[in-house]
């Protein structure tokens, strides 16, 4: 590299650059921690059975809105119908056509979107606070009066088929589907993405019937955060949603099967230059007494950058760009999911290292410093993740739909401080042992087959 633009007296070497006359300096300590003030909040049940959580946090003149409704179904066709419902929910009502929905939203700077998973329907958006009334009007119009006009359903069905094709060409989606089947078998949780045949078979009447059955306020949670008037908002929302009546059925999820440990399944993706490693084990939900200890153990293992896993397979060995381990909350239980994408040539070695780090968590000592670092990270993260309107709304929605007290956020630092290193070790022993994990590797079997066979505990295609 020549850097012809600069008149430099002499090039320094890397060694010269890396040291100064004064030498290394000590790391400054931390200043005094300021605690976040708890913003005012209301938490109320509307007459139609919808729970409303609203927080005044007027950091910017916006309002975030998030609705979640129980939306599970046991019929095989449910996923396809639900997916098409989410794609067409905002394409028109008896009062507005598709374009009017969008123009009315845009006039108040608003966005609104709908999405569905095997457990819930989500409608989320935001608007300028000055346009809250209009925003709520469009939102209420959609949940109470979505029309599912034939031509919109026909059009969205075609697009959905194409979009599913695009999604299934993503290695991440292929790995996700394989993992869901591996750990949940035929449970509805394994049907995150419907087949294109099933989507093609859905008609507008079926979508309308599903809306009538499950787009109901009972069991739902509406979270609003932003520049709100808390004295008025419950009445305002209640009035707008007065026509939304409770229904007979709720879309509860059938009991989630336990994730049983077992061999890793190799799924062939011929010609792939990189493999997806996805391992998962049974964990516990937030309200379980061992949760804080396991949360810390998971962080030490692979839950953040300064974890054993990242320091090993990324920073030491360069096997991956990103590796991480996270909780997934489903129904009233939870799993741990460990993910890494690695080049084909090092995939078996990366799987070996992941198993090694899990084993080490389960049977070897965990240092006090590791637990302290993980705890201080989590406590800081709670502050950071609730400082924005959207972050706070997401946090509250997650707690509310899981049936956890909203004070959990405020109380959690204390809970984490009370955890001992022994408790973290105990949680790691119980939940992070590699024998508790099952999973998949998606990649080029022609390259991966032999080394994975040599490694063992892998089912080859």
């Amino acid at each position, binding site marked *: 590299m020549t850097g012809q633009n600069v008149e430099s007296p002499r090039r320094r070497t890397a060694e010269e650059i890396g040291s100064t006359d004064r030498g290394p300096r000590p790391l400054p300590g931390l200043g005094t921690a300021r605690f976040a003030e708890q913003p005012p909040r209301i938490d109320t049940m509307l007459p139609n059975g919808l729970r409303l959580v609203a927080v005044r946090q007027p950091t*910017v003149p916006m309002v975030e809105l998030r609705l979640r409704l129980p939306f599970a179904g046991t019929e095989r066709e449910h996923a396809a119908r639900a997916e098409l419902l989410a794609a067409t929910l905002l394409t028109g009502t008896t009062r507005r056509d598709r374009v009017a929905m969008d123009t009315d939203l845009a006039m108040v700077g608003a966005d609104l979107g709908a999405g569905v998973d095997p457990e819930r329907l989500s409608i989320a958006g935001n608007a300028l606070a000055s346009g809250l009334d209009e925003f709520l009007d469009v939102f209420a119009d959609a949940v109470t009066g979505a029309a599912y006009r034939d031509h919109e359903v026909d059009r969205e069905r075609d697009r959905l088929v194409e979009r599913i094709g695009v999604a299934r060409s993503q290695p991440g989606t292929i790995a996700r589907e394989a993992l869901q089947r591996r750990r949940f078998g035929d449970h509805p949780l394994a049907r995150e993405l419907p087949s294109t045949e099933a989507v093609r078979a859905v008609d507008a009447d079926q979508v309308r019937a599903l809306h009538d059955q499950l787009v109901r306020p009972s069991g739902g949670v509406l979270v609003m955060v932003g520049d709100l008037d808390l004295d008025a908002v419950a009445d305002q929302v209640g009035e707008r949603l007065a026509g939304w009546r409770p229904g007979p059925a709720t879309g509860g999820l059938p009991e989630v099967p336990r994730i049983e440990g077992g061999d890793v399944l190799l799924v062939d993706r011929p010609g792939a230059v990189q493999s997806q490693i996805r391992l998962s084990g049974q964990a516990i939900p937030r309200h379980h007494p061992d949760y804080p200890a396991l949360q810390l153990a998971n962080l030490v293992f692979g839950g953040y950058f300064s974890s054993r896993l990242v320091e090993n397979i990324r920073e030491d060995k360069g096997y991956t760009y990103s590796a991480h381990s996270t909780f997934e909350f489903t129904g009233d239980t939870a799993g741990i999911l460990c993910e890494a994408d690695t080049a084909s040539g090092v995939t078996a070695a990366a799987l070996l290292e992941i198993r090694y780090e899990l084993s080490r968590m389960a049977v070897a000592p965990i240092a006090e410093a590791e637990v302290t670092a993980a705890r201080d990270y989590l406590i800081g993260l709670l502050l950071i993740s609730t400082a924005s309107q959207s972050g706070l709304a997401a946090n509250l929605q997650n707690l509310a739909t899981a049936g956890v007290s909203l004070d959990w956020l405020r109380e959690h630092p204390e809970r984490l401080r009370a955890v001992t290193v022994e408790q973290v070790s105990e949680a790691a022993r119980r939940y992070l042992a590699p024998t508790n994990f099952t999973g998949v590797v998606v990649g080029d079997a022609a390259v991966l087959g032999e080394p994975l066979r040599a490694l063992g505990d892998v089912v080859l295609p």
Partner: protein
Amino acid sequence: MVDHLLHRFTLPNGLRVVLAPDRAAPVVGVSVHYDVGFRSEPEGRTGFAHLFEHLMFQGSESLEKLAHFRHIQSSGGTFNGSTHPDYTDYHILLPSAGLERALFLEADRMRAPRITEENLRNQVDVVKEEIRLNVLNRPYGGFPWITLPPVLYRTFANAHNGYGDFTDLEQATVEDCAAFFDTYYAPSNAVLTIAGDLDVDHARELVERHFGDVPARPTPVRPSFAEPAPTEERRGEHEDPHAPLPAFAAGYRLPDPHADLDAYLAHLVLSGVLADGDSSRLTQRLVHAEPLAIEVGCRCGLFTPLDARDPDTFLITVVHPQGVDQEILLAAIDEELERLAVEGPGEDEVTRVVARWAASLHREHDRLMSRTLQLGAFELLFGRAELAAELPERLGAVGPSDVAAAAKALRPESRAVLTVRPGSAANDDTDGGGQ
């Protein structure tokens, strides 16, 4: 937009500093923007600016490898870095009790990063995994930010792949790194931004304490990356083995955002009129009415608006089913642009787009890390961190005739079209999943 007063000063070594106090939450954002991006890397060293960004996390005189991550995370914070066409940023978000620690970490690597052969080889491997993940092993990887520029631009600086070729990455040496650091990472070539829970006097004192003795070095002369706009349409093709559907990107040149911000903002409004939401013109026509496309997108900049100096790119992207002729889609785009150029958009249309931009700027401002990065980037690129607060009003001043003028400039002969041809591998995957 919440209007917090900005404070700025320059240290004797040339480091520019922007302070943006806001004590709403006990959290603070720190960023350092260096005035070098992938447009500055020399031929034979594609991807070097990004690779070097990785190396800046690998330790410095006072910090062993891994110490940077550990100190930030054990202070309750998060960090990252990113490489853009014209700058590279490093950022930390953490509880405000950790402010001095964050400044110490940034100052230590600005003063004396430790660049070793072992860390270089390790990070070349990591970067190659990043490229496999984001480009080589997925459909539409690098579309259009890697694949369009070589069609639209003629100079190496503007046209080359900023992620880099594997052969170039593998040939990078420790000596290259030392020269790159000495040339481009001078304090006078950087902007330090601190936003959030801070006391101005105290923050200033901390900045002077930690950055004051970073030795001054010559400020590199920034080359112009200007090149003439196309005078006839340019076409290119890219075969994507993973893509299930054809796609294309049409790229046009944007007005220089520094010299003529209002003209640039007119293009920003135009992008919303064309493709933001179901009521936008291209979405209505191509996705819903006719319908010829699966997705239509439009934006200013290869990544985000106002993120690069001139020359910058106005983008229209379309994903469409097999069997739909790309020329019909291009003709429809031209027709809509022509109509806008002649008739202009309606007042309401402009109002709606501006309202949505204002809302998205508010949301960006509400996320402290985004706000810190925006202030730093605007200060570095345009010398005007204030722009962050002024943008909603500046956008509000854009009228239908400005948008019409912007549409008029987007002529077929002034654009490049990059076509993505689906490869064979994709067809095996479609619907490979279960129920």
